[in-house]
């Protein structure tokens, strides 16, 4: 039906739409044709206007310079009008043919304007202006002709178009009239058919509804089609469904009754009416059995009669909650008919039935369930505890693993209980491999030098014995790179009963620390040796001025030992003057934090000492000053050396002077000698015993002696390069003795010559060697103080390897305490007379010549100086030659 209605409406709309469209189109066509006609008319009018304007311009030109002419402005305006209108034509769409004509028209207008401009602006003679005028006139005519042609063309087209348009409009009109008359009849016919189709099925449906209302569920509608047919079918199905529904409700009712009767839980329906609250309205068999009543007995009771007193007291509260719409659940206690109390779980809510409120309550005996629940709860608690315990163990393991030390935990029987990951990392030992017979081996122990390992008490045993923690260092031998040290701490733990419960063994790697310690020890040892063996005086004091370190030379300066100084200050040990000086300089160096030099002169035991001291602060690794170090040097010798150098320079100068004097004396001496000899010749005639002759002899002898002295002096003073040549040592000894024998000092001295013959020659510088023996002889003479005996001796010794020259005196001798110092420079026993240089120079010369000198002396008996020169070995001599 819907489809039919839809199709009918569509047809009507389509007819109207087609009609309307046709009307609109035909009107549109007619009007556009009329528009077209109007446009064509306008074009014609436009072209007419163009003609009029051309004519106007032409007449103005003809009348120019007469009173009838319009102004030039008018001519210009008209000429521009032509151009404007012609341009307007180009705004519309035209055929190519028309466009060509329009272009021609435009061009003709341009030319005409050009002529006009020339004509209007030009000032020339009549001939020229006439030509311009004619040109303009000719162009105007050409323009008029073009326009006229276009007007004609437009008119022809206009006529034809008007004819066809009028015809079209007539046809449209006829169709329109036909449509207007036919449409109402068509619509009325459609309406009639539609109403008839609608009313018939509605009546059939109305009848069926009335039957159903009267209870006739078996009535069926027949003979309807379309949507009405569908409605009728639904109607028929509805009556069948109603019958089926009634059967189903009856069945359900039965099922619920059975369910109620045979339910395992007790079910009660209770009254809520005021005054009857809790009265049992209905109860099932299970409820009766649960409480030990029959159903009929129950129906006479109130639910409070089944509650224990404490459950009954809360009953009203529960009732109130149920009435407020809550479905409650609770565990309460009920009492059986025989008085036995038992737990029930009740589940109750409001039940509205035919505007009456009831309570529906389900009761379940939960005595058994409660028992089971308690057991389960206990089991769960135990599980939780175990889980916590495991968690704790895990945490403990994590803590142990994160420790930097290796840790193993043993129980009282040495069984391995714990070991952290670090233990294996540090020691490289798997704790499992230490287990022997189920017990952990006592691996770590302290090594004591000289004690066999097996003889030592094991630390573990010690811990068990004493109950005290034990701490020791364990050495794991290896080569330099793999040897290791561990600090082991074994700690016992006891339970409440005082029994050994656990032993914790921690292993800390301390190899680096131990090695560092060794390095420090070595370093300290080096430092100590360095200080102890230094010739310089070295001290270190703390910031309070107390001695921390002092070496032997420093302490010995004042005849003390280092221990006398340690821990004491300068003021406590030294003279105030010196202490003040040292403290002042120390402070200055500390304040300036820099190296400071000082020179100190001291009198120690009557001897002057010159000290060069440097003070400098010491810093710790942070750059903080921790103490002051002083290094001192005894510069006394150096000072004396300087003085002697000066003296020696002086002596050298005197020597040179003596040499030059000797040289100068030599000449007059020669004169004296020769004249004396001449004078003596003159005395040949005289008596030989004449005293004059003797006098001359004395002159000659003494002059000769003078000459010899001078000659020897010159020999000594002659500056020679050290020239070693093989020579007899006896020659040198003789010469030296010869030089001094006649001196006043030697007058009281007896010389004894004990020189050996046949000594081999040994190489030396005769001049220097002469100086050696001169010195030794003079020293001997001085030692015996001019009264005594000097023996000069020579001999072969050392199985012929050495030639020795000896100078022996019988003087007082040299005491043993100074005999070691006599060859030292500046040592003198002569007080201010001596320079203390002689013997040291002697020793230096001999050693330079390859020989040795030694001294033997006995107090009160005399002294012997022995000069030993090595005899060259024959093979060497051969080679040399």
């Amino acid at each position, binding site marked *: 039906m819907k489809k039919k209605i839809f199709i009918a409406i569509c047809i009507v709309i389509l007819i109207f739409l087609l009609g309307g469209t046709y009307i609109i189109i035909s009107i549109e066509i007619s009007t556009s044709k009329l528009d077209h006609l109007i446009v064509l008319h306008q074009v014609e009018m436009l072209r007419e206007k163009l003609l009029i304007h051309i004519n106007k311009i032409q007449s103005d030109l003809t009348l120019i310079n007469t009173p009838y002419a319009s102004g*030039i*402005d008018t001519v*210009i305006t008209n*000429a*521009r009008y032509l*151009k404007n209108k012609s341009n307007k034509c180009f705004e519309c769409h035209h055929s190519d043919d028309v466009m060509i004509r329009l272009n021609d028209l435009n061009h003709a207008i341009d030319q005409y*304007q*050009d002529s*006009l*401009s*020339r004509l*209007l*602006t*030009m*000032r*020339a*003679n009549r001939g*020229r202006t006439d030509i311009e005028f004619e040109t303009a006139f000719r162009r105007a005519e050409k323009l008029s002709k073009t326009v006229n042609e276009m007007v004609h063309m437009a008119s022809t087209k206009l006529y034809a178009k008007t004819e066809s348009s009028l015809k079209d409009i007539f046809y449209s009109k006829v169709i329109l009239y036909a449509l207007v008359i036919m449409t109402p009849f068509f619509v009325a016919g459609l309406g009639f058919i539609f109403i008839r189709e609608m009313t018939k099925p509605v009546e059939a449906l109305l009848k069926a509804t009335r039957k159903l209302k009267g209870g006739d569920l078996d009535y069926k509608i027949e003979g309807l089609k379309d949507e009405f047919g569908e409605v009728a079918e639904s109607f028929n199905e509805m009556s069948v469904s109603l019958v089926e529904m009634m059967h189903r409700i009856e069945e359900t009712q039965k099922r619920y009754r059975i369910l109620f009767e045979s339910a395992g839980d007790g079910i009660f329906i209770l009254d809520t009416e005021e005054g009857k609250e809790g009265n049992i309205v209905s109860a099932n068999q299970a409820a009766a059995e649960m409480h030990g009543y029959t159903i009929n007995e129950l129906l006479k009771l109130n639910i409070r009669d089944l509650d224990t007193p404490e459950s009954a007291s809360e009953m009203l509260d529960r009732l109130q909650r149920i009435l407020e719409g809550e479905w409650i659940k609770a565990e309460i206690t009920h009492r059986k008919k025989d008085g036995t109390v038992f737990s029930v779980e009740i589940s109750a809510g409001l039940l509205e039935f035919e505007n009456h409120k009831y309570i529906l309550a389900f009761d379940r005996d939960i005595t058994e369930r409660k028992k089971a629940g308690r057991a389960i709860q206990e089991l769960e608690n135990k599980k939780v505890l175990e889980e916590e315990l495991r968690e704790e163990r895990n945490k403990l393991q994590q803590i142990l693993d994160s420790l930097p030390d290796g840790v193993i935990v043993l129980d009282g029987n040495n069984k391995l209980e714990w070991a952290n990951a670090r233990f294996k990392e540090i020691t490289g030992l798997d704790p499992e491999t230490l287990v022997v017979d189920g017990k952990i081996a006592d691996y770590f122990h302290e090594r004591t030098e000289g004690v066999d390992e097996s003889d030592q008490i094991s630390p573990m045993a010690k811990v068990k014995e004493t109950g005290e923690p034990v701490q020791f260092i364990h050495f794991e031998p290896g080569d330099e790179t793999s040897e290791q040290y561990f600090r082991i701490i074994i700690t016992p733990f006891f339970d409440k009963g005082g029994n050994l419960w656990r032993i914790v063994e921690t292993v800390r790697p301390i190899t680096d620390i131990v090695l560092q310690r060794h390095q420090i020890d070595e370093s300290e040892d080096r430092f100590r040796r360095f200080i102890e063996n230094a010739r310089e005086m070295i001290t270190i004091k703390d910031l309070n001025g107390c001695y921390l370190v002092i070496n032997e030379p420093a302490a010995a300066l004042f005849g003390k030992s280092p221990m006398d100084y340690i821990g004491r200050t300068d003021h406590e040990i030294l003279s105030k003057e010196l202490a003040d000086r040292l403290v002042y300089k120390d402070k200055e160096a500390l304040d300036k934090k820099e190296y400071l030099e000082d020179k100190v002169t001291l009198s120690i035991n009557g001897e002057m000492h010159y000290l060069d001291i440097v003070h400098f602060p010491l810093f710790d690794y942070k750059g903080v000053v921790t103490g002051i170090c002083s290094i001192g040097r005894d510069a006394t010798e150096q000072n004396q050396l300087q003085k002697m150098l000066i003296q020696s320079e002086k002596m050298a100068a005197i020597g040179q002077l003596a040499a030059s004097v000797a040289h100068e004396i030599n000449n007059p001496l020669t004169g004296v000698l020769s004249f004396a000899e001449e004078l003596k010749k003159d005395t040949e005639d005289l008596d030989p015993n004449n005293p004059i002759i003797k006098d001359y002899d004395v002159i000659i002898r003494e002059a000769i002696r003078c000459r010899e002295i001078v000659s020897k002096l010159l020999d000594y003073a002659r500056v020679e390069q050290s020239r070693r040549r093989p020579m007899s040592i006896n020659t040198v000894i003789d010469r030296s003795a010869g030089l001094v024998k006649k001196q006043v000092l030697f007058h009281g001295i007896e010389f004894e010559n004990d020189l050996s013959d046949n000594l081999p020659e040994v190489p030396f510088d005769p001049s220097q060697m002469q100086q050696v023996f001169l010195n030794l002889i003079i020293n001997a003479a001085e030692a015996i103080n001019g009264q005594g005996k000097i023996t000069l001796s020579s001999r072969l010794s050392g199985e012929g390897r050495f030639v020795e020259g000896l100078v022996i005196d019988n003087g007082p001798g040299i005491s043993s305490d100074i005999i070691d110092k006599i060859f030292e420079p500046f040592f003198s026993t002569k007080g201010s007379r001596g320079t203390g240089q002689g013997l040291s120079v002697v020793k230096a010369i001999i050693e330079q010549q390859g020989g040795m000198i030694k001294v033997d002396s006995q107090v009160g008996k005399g002294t012997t100086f022995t000069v030993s020169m090595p005899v060259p070995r024959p093979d060497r001599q051969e080679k040399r030659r």
Partner: protein
Amino acid sequence: MPRINKILIAVCLCMAIVTGCSETKMENTTKTEERHLLIGLIPEQNIFKQLKRYEPLANDLSQKIRVNVKLKVLTRYGNIIDNFISTGLDAAFFGSFTYVLAHRKLGVEAITRPESIDGISTCHGLILVRKNSGIETVKDMKGKTFAFVDRATTAGYLLPLEYFKEHGIKDYKTFFKEFYFTGTHESAIYDVLNETVDICAAKNTVFTRLAFKDSRINNELMILKRSPDVPENGLAVREDLDDSLKKKLKEALLNMHKDPDGIDVLRNFGAKRFVETTDDDYASVYRYTQKIGLNLANYHYWDE
């Protein structure tokens, strides 16, 4: 029947309202037209082309200074001096010589002039012949025909006058077989090109503009003489023009090259911008007139 009456009344009312509206509109238009500025144009070229060239400029100015700017093209250079008085021109684009005359006679005040696309704001006069005319010197000119533009133009009259004087032509009227005034520079150039006349005097800017469109001009014509530079046709206003209007007009022209519409107008006009101009810029023209012995005060500019 009464319903039809009602409809008719409604229709009539509507029509009355619509008509009323359109009338009001017309009144407004009339009012704006009352205030206007009339600018005169000299016939530099074909007067219709001249109008066409200046119209977009006038429209742009109307919008910018909110005064209806109207143009009046004159058929003769000299007219512009007369028309200031007779037709009440407010301003005019003067040729350099007409300005100098008008300044002396009427006291007009120069304000701006255009600067060409190449940045030049001056022009000069040329003396032209056909290349095949055989005319190369003044001697060759004797007995030929000569076309001036107008007695009130620099390029179209003063230049040839100076040229004649320089070459010892005492009276050009007898020297040439015939002479006349073409009225526009364009006509003068085309008359030589079309062999209507042998020699002509014209302005370089018009020559260049025409040569751009018509290649014959460069190919067939030859320049014999060129005058010194004088300012290009500039706008001068009447002495008593309202100061505020004068200022607005000047600013609108000087700033025209700064807005897109103005740039379009200037491009069509053939200029880059307008530059400020004062009487001092015409010093060269004053000198030129002195040189050829013209007395500006009593100069008779009507063509003979």
